[in-house]
Structure formats: C-alpha cells, structure tokens
C-alpha cells in the first residue's frame, strides 16, 4: 500500500480506539511493508497520535501568547485542580485526558479550550469547569 495512506489509516485507528494499539501497528507494518519501528516513529512524530489509551474526553487548553495574556494560566490551574491530573495525564476513571497546548487557532477569542472536537472561547474558570461537569 502507498506510504502516503499511512497517516489516514492512523487517524482512523486513533478515532476508533482513542489511541493506536500495538497490534494495530503490527498490522500496519505488514500492510505497508514497513518495519514496525517506522510506523512507531511516524506516530511519535505527531503529537496528536497516542500509543497509550486516552480518556473519553480529550481536553486541550491553549497556553500560547494571546491566551496567556488573557490568563490561560489560571484556567489551566483550575482545570488541573478540578480533574486532579497534570498535563499529559488521564483521570483514573479514563474519562478525561488533559493537554496544555500551543495555539488552537482562536487567538482573538482567548482563553480557549477544546474538548474533543468542540472549541470553547472567551472562557473563564467557572465556565470551563461547568463544561467539564456537563461531560460527566
């Protein structure tokens, strides 16, 4: 199979399982005739592919310049405290994974948070917590 299709397949697997399991890497390695190290390297190059299971809800809080000026730091702390996890971790009930990220593309509307594919703008701490509560 053409190498160019690899990324698309990785997206499909990521969307299906929430991460890319080892046996799927082995299958891709066979199908694309690539060493499995190569498939693994490709996954690790992109920060939005995961080799470990992530939570049902992927929470990404932006902390790049313009959000930072609008106190994203406070937002990050509030979310961390509420979920009880640090950047990059997943809650014990496997519901939430938190990532502090660079720029979600809404610099004029900060601070900004994304939950799975949904973007939330002009946030404050209370609204952010409410959004997370609504996910429960």
């Amino acid at each position, binding site marked *: 199979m053409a190498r160019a299709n690899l990324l698309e397949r990785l997206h499909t697997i990521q969307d299906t399982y929430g991460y890319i399991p*080892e046996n799927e*890497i*082995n299958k891709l*390695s066979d199908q694309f005739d*690539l*060493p*499995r*190290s*190569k498939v*693994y*390297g490709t996954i*690790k*190059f992109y920060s939005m592919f995961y*080799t470990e299971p992530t939570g049902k809800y992927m929470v990404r809080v932006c902390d790049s310049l313009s959000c930072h000026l609008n106190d994203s730091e406070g937002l990050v702390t509030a979310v961390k405290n509420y979920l009880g996890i640090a950047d990059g971790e997943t809650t014990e009930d496997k519901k939430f994974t938190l990532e502090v990220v660079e720029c979600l593309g809404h610099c004029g509307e900060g601070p900004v948070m994304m939950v799975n594919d949904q973007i939330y703008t002009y946030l404050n701490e209370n609204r952010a917590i409410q959004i997370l509560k609504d996910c429960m």
Partner: protein
Amino acid sequence: MATALIDGQQVDFESGETILEAAEKVQIKIPTLCHAEDLSIYGGCRICVVEIEGERLLKPACATKISEGMKIKTHSPKVREVRRNIFELIVASHDISCRLNCLTCSRNQSCELREIAADIGANQTRFDPIDKGYDDDRSSVSIVREPNKCITCGRCIRKCEEVQGVGIFTMANRGPATVLTTFGDKGMGNVECTNCGQCIHACPTGALHEVYHYDRVWDMLKDEDKFVVVQTAPAVRVALAELFESKPGTIVTGQMVAGLKRLGFDRVFDTNFAADLTIMEEGTELIGRIEDGGPFPMFTSCSPGWIKYIEHFYPEYLENLSSCKSPQQMFGAVAKSYYAQQHGIDKEDMVVVSVMPCTAKKFESGRGEMDQDVDFVLTTRELGRMVKEAGIDLVNLAEEDYDPMMGESTGAGSIFGSSGGVMEAALRTAYELITEEELEELDFEPVRGAEGIKEAEVEIKGMTVKTAVASGLSNVGQLLEKIKNGEEYHFVEMMACPGGCIGGGGQPIPTNQETVEERMKAIYEIDAGKKKRKSHQNKEVQQLYEDYLGAPNSHLAHELLHTNYIKREI
C-alpha cells in the same frame, strides 16, 4: 562530460554526481558526518555545506547534484565559520562533560566527532552540553545503546534498514526532543534485533557498542581455580592487527596466539578446528539430505545473526536450517566434555572464552539450547583492548602455535571467516566423501568475492548440486524471497554481515568495503598456504571421532554438536 569549478579546480563529472563525489576527484576532502558511502543520502547534519556562486544559501555537498558551470567553494571563510558553528551545536547535543568521559568512551580511538573537529579546525565549544538524561538501553545481551551520546545522524537507522533489511531503529518526537529509539521504546533486546552489530560500525560516536565481557574475563584469568581456555575465530587473525596501527589484511595468527598466552589463558585453541568439525557434521547432514531427498535447500547455521533473523522473519524455513551448532558452540561443547575428560578437569572449573568478530555470538552463547558451553565472548575490539591494557606489543611478538588436541585446522576451516567460505569448505569435503575420489580443483571461485549474492552449480557423481551464498541480511532476505518464489537450491550459505564474519559487528572500526576486501584476501591467503585444505584431513578432528564421538552425526555427536531453533514473534 560536463565541467564545473571546485575551489578553482576544473572538474569533469557525469550527470547525477554530487558535489561531494566530484570534489573527491580533485583531492578535496569535504567533512561529512551523517553521510556514509553504503547508505542512502540523508543531508541532515549540514557539516558538508559549501558555497555555490549565485546561490543565497549554503548547500549540503552530499545531497546537492553538481551541474554544468557551477562555481563551488568548499572551504571559504564563510563555509568554515558556518561549519564550526554547526559543529558546536552538534557537540552540545552530545554527552561531553567536564568528567572528561571522552577518555573512557568506547570510541576514544575512533570517534568521528574528534576527526571532524580536527578537519574543520574547531577551536571552541561555546554551548554547554545538553543533559538529555536518557537511560542507557541495556536490554540486549549483545549491544548497549547510550542515547546521551547519540547525535541523531540516523546512520544506524539506515544501516539496519537498508543494508540489513531489518529496521529496528526509528527517530521519535520532534525538534530538540528528537530521540532515537526502537519500536515502543522496548529496547534492542526486546525487538526483532539480530544482534549483528552493524549499527556499531555505522555510528560515528560511542552511542552504540558491544556488551563488554572483558572485565569478567580478567577476573577469570586471575582466579587460580579456573582452567581458562580460549578459542579464536577465523576472522579475528586477519583484523586484530588493525587495532595496532597495521594495515587491514595483516595476518597475525601466531602473534595473537602468543599474546593470548601472555594474557594468561591456560590453553589457546582454534575455532578453525571447530570449523573443520562443523564441516564433518554439516557435510554428513547434507549427504544425508541428498540421499533422503531433502528438505532442501539446507541452510548453514554458523551465523547467529542469520539464525535470529530467520527465527523472526522466516520461521517457516526453520526445518531447512542445518541442525549443527556453530563452530563457537561446537568448540565449547567439545572442550567441556572431551578435553575436560581427557585431562581430568572438572567441567565446572573450566571457563571457555571465545574471541569473535561478532556481537551476536554473545547472544548465541547465552541461548538456553546451548547449555553454557561458552562462558564469555570477546569481540576482536575487546581482545585488542585487553592486549593494550596488558602492555603487550602484539604485532612484534614471536609467533607461537595453538595448543594440541583442538588447535589444528585446515584451509577449509580458515575460510569460514569469509562469505562463501563455509560453502567452499563443505563442497571440498562433500565431494570427496560422496565420490571417494580426490578433488583436484579446490578453489570454488564463483562463491568467493564480496558480492552480496553468489550462485554456483557443482557436478558431484552425476548430480548437479545447486548452491547459493548470501551475506548482509538484506541480501539474505532477497535470496529467501527468491526461494519462496520457487527457485530451487540444495545448499545455501547465509551470513548476517556483509562479506561474512570478516565484516562482523565486533571487528575493528572502521569496517567498510575496503577493509573487508583486504581481510578477505588475507583469509584466502591463509587457506592457500595450508598443506591440508580439506576438513576431513584434520588429524585432530579424526582423533576426536576415534577417541570420543564415534562417527559424524553419531548419537553423542548429536547430543553435543547439534541444536534446535525457536520461532520468534515480530
């Protein structure tokens, strides 16, 4: 033929040539780091940048094609300054610290960073080294990886994938967090690594080296209760001298034996003896298969890198492998039974050390099937280290002979170290055993030489025996695919390393096409100089059968000299 100017020198070139290649033709050396002749072009390190008139940016000489009328400056002030800056940045990513760990690095004599520093006149290192804090990968019993010394040039990745067709390495992450790793960060010992050690030859730094056994061998030599015997592989005697500033291909068999005796080994024996023994067993096995009609092809089983490769990638062919242990393991088994009994030595007190051109032999000696026949495996490099540490001027020693009972060898045993050698040795013996006639032409030219895949047909008693030889695992893989697609052979020799054991992962650095070819010439020179050139003429091997084993493939021979293999997952 087009022309261009490099540093004012007119150079003729063919279309498709790179600036680096063209510059070499007019005696201009452009420093390189991520580039290696046997690998694909990467263009990652930028040490080879040059100035091209009319171009705004400097271009990497390794990855830029030269074209008609180009005016190139390879060492202009601008180039020299940029090169030094790049070098400083590379060095900052490498574990150099005030603990002066260069002194204790595996590559203290052969570090390419030091070579480049000299080539470019580096005179300062302004950046503090980055403490990357990675753990060493010690998961493999053959090879250690020290990621803190890695400069992510990717040469090991390409070597493993392109030359060996395996591909256990990858880069992970991006930017400054880029790190070289294996699948799932599992470590080299937990993936489909064959332990061949070719990555060590590819590495410009000390980020990859063998798992050392020499310190434990020193302990054994010190221990008066231990009877320590050593065996030396065929490929070591034609390469060891390179560690003592001699030309590649210098033969130091007798000096090496003398050196090993001075180190304090109780007996110095020859793996070539065991190679002759292997031919008796493997030749008999081949004749048996010819009589029984298969299974064909029969594969040789001397190269432990090849064995692990087939166990991982082609387990459906495991029954085609010769059941013979490798010469290293046959030696160990015979030393700890036959020799120990004849001399009243308790097996438990005997320590068998091997000197091998190979890192995979370390893995092989620890295989469960091998019953601890060999206790420690030194690479050629490790032996060089011990000899230096003992202050022995090896190349100038008076030559000495191997000890009797397991020290005699024929020319056939000697050529095991070269790709095609096992095949040639086996054919010499099989021919005479089958036809009961004397073989007149002993040199099987078609299976000699440095090509990756060689084929030959031999007429034996009206039967055409089809043979093939492959060295370098990507060639091995190609030959296996050919066999899968229906190509028929009777006997196939497979070696993991390009050129065979002389190009092994434990050999002196550099090991490249040039040094391998010189070592190969020396191997055949040893063979040509021997009075006996057929394994079945080896008197000590005959004695072993007479006094102990009975006949080739006897019950006891099977117990001691044969083994079985494992299907491994990928």
